[in-house]
């Protein structure tokens, strides 16, 4: 998990929000863990008209100008990755 491109840190939480493993800028970052668990708990109440509850969510992204947090749930664990955004990556190479 440490070797993903542009990744600056990661957190793995259990369903209660306890930190199972962490690395880099998110090492033992319980504050980030609590804030993101708070957001995940809120997602269950989102618009049932626009987002049918049976579909649920797969990915939560929090995007800043130069970095972002990507959150997803897998194997009853919450995976949080902090990545830096390299804007030059978005320019397609047409050689």
């Amino acid at each position, binding site marked *: 998990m440490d070797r993903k491109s542009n990744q600056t840190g990661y957190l793995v939480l259990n369903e209660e929000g306890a930190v199972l493993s962490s690395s880099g800028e998110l090492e033992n970052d319980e504050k980030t863990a609590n804030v993101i668990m708070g957001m995940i708990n809120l997602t269950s109440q989102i618009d049932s008209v626009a987002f049918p509850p049976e579909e649920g969510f797969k990915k939560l992204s*929090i995007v*800043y100008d130069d970095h972002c947090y990507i959150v997803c749930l897998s194997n009853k664990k919450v995976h949080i990755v902090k990545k830096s955004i390299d804007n030059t990556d978005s320019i397609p190479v047409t050689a």
Partner: protein
Amino acid sequence: MEKHLNRVMEEITNQPGVYGCVLSDHQGLCLGAHGQASTESSGVITALAEQALKLEPKSVMPIISLENDNRQLIIRRHGVLTCGIYKSVCN
């Protein structure tokens, strides 16, 4: 003001893939909803934006995106206004 808001929401909903949008104030009270979106979601959208602000209080407000295979919800707060945009995702 309401006419202007309605026009903005209509413009947003007319964008490709967008099927609904909600605007709410800093207290989570609904200012308007357009398309396939209910006014009830305004509180949750503001709460999500507030929660995201706690992540990095010194940074500018981030864009929050919630996705599944077919749909996407994009939340952006600007000043006291929070906007939630519902989009369908083409795979």
